[in-house]
């Protein structure tokens, strides 16, 4: 009775719009680069030039060259592709699988829920990075393995959020009304509950996408990314860190590229979360 419904300040404040705009511009920029880099890069990123090693940033090479005389700018642009090859499929896989698992566990409750949650608990407790190190190191590097490892470590996170949201919905009277009139459980899950946990799924998708970029970059830094030789940002940081004192630009360029992409994605995710959760 008498719920206090004071008008609340509106959700779409300018800062959300600015942050969202900046984020979208950054993410779209790197997405375009990932596709079009062969047309944008001034040099072939693999072209070695022994006469021009460790050239500092300047007119010929805007961001300098590395130990083999390869152009840092070109490698930075080319490096957008490997990350964006891994993160989207990994995110999609994790969100789909996690949503299904969370929905099933949450809708059914009881023993099913108990078993699923205990398994997920065990997986969550197992540090994702250790799992990744174990799996990638032992089964070889490939895009598929990378996608599977990242997706696998995100499934429990997505499943837990979706399950929590499902549990809230499941207790609501509209679901009980559907059970009372004998809707089968798939119908409860997909027709009644799913439309009302979509916000959670979307929030998870954007957040996990940012995390997937983070994870892909970290794994390639650890030498567990794509096969050696690719201009992967993480791998570039790792390869060039030995010459940090001599040619810091070779490390800074890919590092800043990673930073800008993840920050852009974080801004997008946060703004969208603010908007969705307010609605």
């Amino acid at each position, binding site marked *: *009775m*008498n*719920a*206090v*419904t*004071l*008008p*609340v*300040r*509106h959700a779409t404040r300018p800062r959300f719009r600015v942050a969202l705009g900046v984020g979208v511009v950054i993410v779209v920029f790197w997405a375009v680069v990932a596709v079009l880099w062969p047309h944008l890069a001034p040099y072939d990123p693999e072209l070695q030039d022994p006469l021009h090693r460790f050239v500092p940033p300047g007119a010929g090479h805007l961001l300098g060259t590395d130990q083999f005389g390869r152009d840092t700018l070109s490698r930075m642009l080319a490096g957008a592709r490997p990350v964006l090859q891994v993160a989207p499929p990994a995110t999609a896989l994790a969100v789909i699988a996690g949503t299904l698992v969370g929905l099933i566990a949450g809708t059914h409750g009881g023993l099913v829920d108990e078993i699923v949650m205990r398994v997920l608990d065990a997986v969550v407790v197992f540090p994702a990075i250790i799992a990744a190190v174990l799996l990638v190191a032992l089964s070889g590097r490939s895009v598929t393995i990378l996608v599977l490892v990242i997706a696998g470590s995100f499934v429990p996170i997505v499943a837990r959020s979706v399950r929590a949201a499902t549990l809230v919905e499941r207790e*609501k*009277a*509209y679901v*009980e*009304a*559907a*059970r*009372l*009139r*004998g*809707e089968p459980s798939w119908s409860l899950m997909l*027709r*009644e509950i799913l*439309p*009302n946990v979509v916000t959670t799924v979307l929030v998870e998708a954007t957040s996990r996408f940012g995390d997937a970029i983070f994870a892909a970059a970290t794994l390639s830094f650890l030498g567990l990314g794509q096969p050696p030789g690719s201009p992967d940002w993480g791998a570039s940081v790792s390869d060039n860190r030995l010459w940090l004192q001599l040619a810091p630009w070779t490390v800074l360029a890919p590092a800043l590229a990673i930073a800008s992409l993840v920050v852009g994605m974080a801004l997008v995710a946060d703004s969208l979360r603010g908007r969705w959760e307010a609605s």
Partner: protein
Amino acid sequence: MTTTPDGSAAGLTVEGLTVAYRTARGEAAAVTGMSFHVAPGETYGLVGESGCGKTTLSRALGRHLPPNGAVTSGRVRLDGVDVLDLAPADLRKWRATSLAVVHQDAGSSLDPTMRVGPQLAEILRLRGLSRAGAREEVPRMLARVRLPDPASIARRYPHQLSGGQQQRVVIAAALTARPRLLVLDEPTTGLDATVEREILDLIWMLRAEIGAAVVLISHDLGLVGRLCDRVGVLYGGHLVEEGNARDVLAAPRHPYTSALLAAVPRLGESRHARRLAAISGHPPAAGENVAGCPFAPRCALADGLCARTLPRLEAAGTRHEVRCHHSDRLYHPSSAVDVQTPARLRDDPGLSPTAADPAPELLQIRGLTRKYGRTTVVDDVSLSIGHGQVLGLVGESGSGKTTLARAVAGLGPRGTGTISLDGHALPASLRRRDARTRRRVQMVFQSPDASLNPSHTVRTILARALHTLRGSVSPQELAARADLDGHLLDSRPDRLSGGQKQRVAIARAFAGEPDLVVCDEPVSALDVSVQAGVLQLLSDQQRATGTSYLFISHDLAVVGYLADRVAVMYRGQIVDEGPAGRVLQGPHHPYTASLVAASLARLGEPTEQDTGMVQPGRPTGPGCRFAPRCPRRIDGLCDSENPPVRTEGGDHTVRCHLGIGDLPRRAVPVTIGVAPGATEEKEDPSA
């Protein structure tokens, strides 16, 4: 009228107060041009439904509006001090010395991570007491609000107290200074009837003691009428009527006040005797700006003038003012609103099943027990409902009434006992009920917001129900039967008002022509003016289809209005069960008597029914569960032996050690107790 040195009146004076919020769609006024005066020692009641501006007003009085709200014009003076003009430091000092506010839901006004004692001591320290002095004073403060064992209360965390105890602590905190203004914002909403009664008694006793101007804000007209000297009725941010409480309630001059009074069922009144006068439409939303009279869209007397011009507040009697163009056309609530009662309903014997004519039994519950963990919530309950009969189930929160209802519907935990429908066993688990049985038992839930899937349109919601329950009509027809406008069919629930949502939920429950509909507090979340329409719909549907109801409510008057038989539940047991009139009238269980008293008695009159505190936890040992609170307790018997079930007049059972002749009863038929001479008779033990 006493005056302060600068010549203004003592007490609270509000002049032309307008409060507006900045929203995405521009400024929205929540309170417009409000003026009233409350003298020291006087209690002023402000009544209104949700969205009428009463919360905004209460916050404006303490100058504590949310950041997007502001007073755009008007003044608030207390004993001559202009509250809105105070500098921040002075405002703090004014709040510390002159203001006390008690909000709804006391539990949340206490810091959950801090013990009660230190929280009170901190307020005393602000008033200049030493650490030791504050520690000594705390138990005295708690004793003042009649809390037993203050030292132990002081050592507890808020969550270890019952709702009533929390509210007492908050009142104690409010009274540490000698406030000049006490604002009570829905102080008892959410509390059980008997606890509400205790808190109101306490406020009544204290108000004389402190001599402050008291403003009581509530949605409950009856409550305000019982406690207050003067009443102001709020609608759409305007004060529409103001006067002495007795005058306003006995002879309202505004159509809204009048309709509101007619919309509330009175205790003991049955649907077979009177149709409730529902007010069509719903109250304007907070900040919804209307030209003209805000009530015009719902008013039977409204004409073009009302839609164009906001009436002025004009004298309508001694200290009685009303804001209406047509108040001269309105004298008595029944003459204006009660016109639609079809005469034939009053004494059509076929429509009112009586005790002499027991209907064949539809539902039978035998020895039903339900537990949550180790707590027994429903304890060995047996009940039955006849064909076409409405069984009302009353009890306070935690009595187990909802668990019982859900068990009938096939929801909730499993347990022992049997439920049968027309003699056939009804499986406890929904999964084992076949399609035909599911179709026969449906449910209407409490919260209108959670009842409907927010992602589906009304049409989808009804069509799904018709499909799975094999209903034979179209969604349009189903909606029409629930008095829902056809144009709402393609709306999603967020576009519907609370009353409309509940109508959809009722239509859905009737999709498969059920034999039994379980109604779990279907109107308790609705505004009073909307509640009547939904109750009337339930009543009409019952009459049209002959469906039986298991109808649950905490409100005795609502249950009495709809039910043919009433069962009273206390801590998991049915303590009183029988024909509605006889249960309300008595002889009845002492607990039933306390419920009746709580909803009727005038304040300030200590009754025999001086119940003790509700003790948290459930006694599991032998003895009557009500014994700790029972004024008729027989020491050595009630607290050690289970009471027998006594039968009165063939079909009325009471679980009590007292003989039928000793049970409490009311001397005269019950009706609402505001008008002079109505019903404040005490229980008559000798009868």
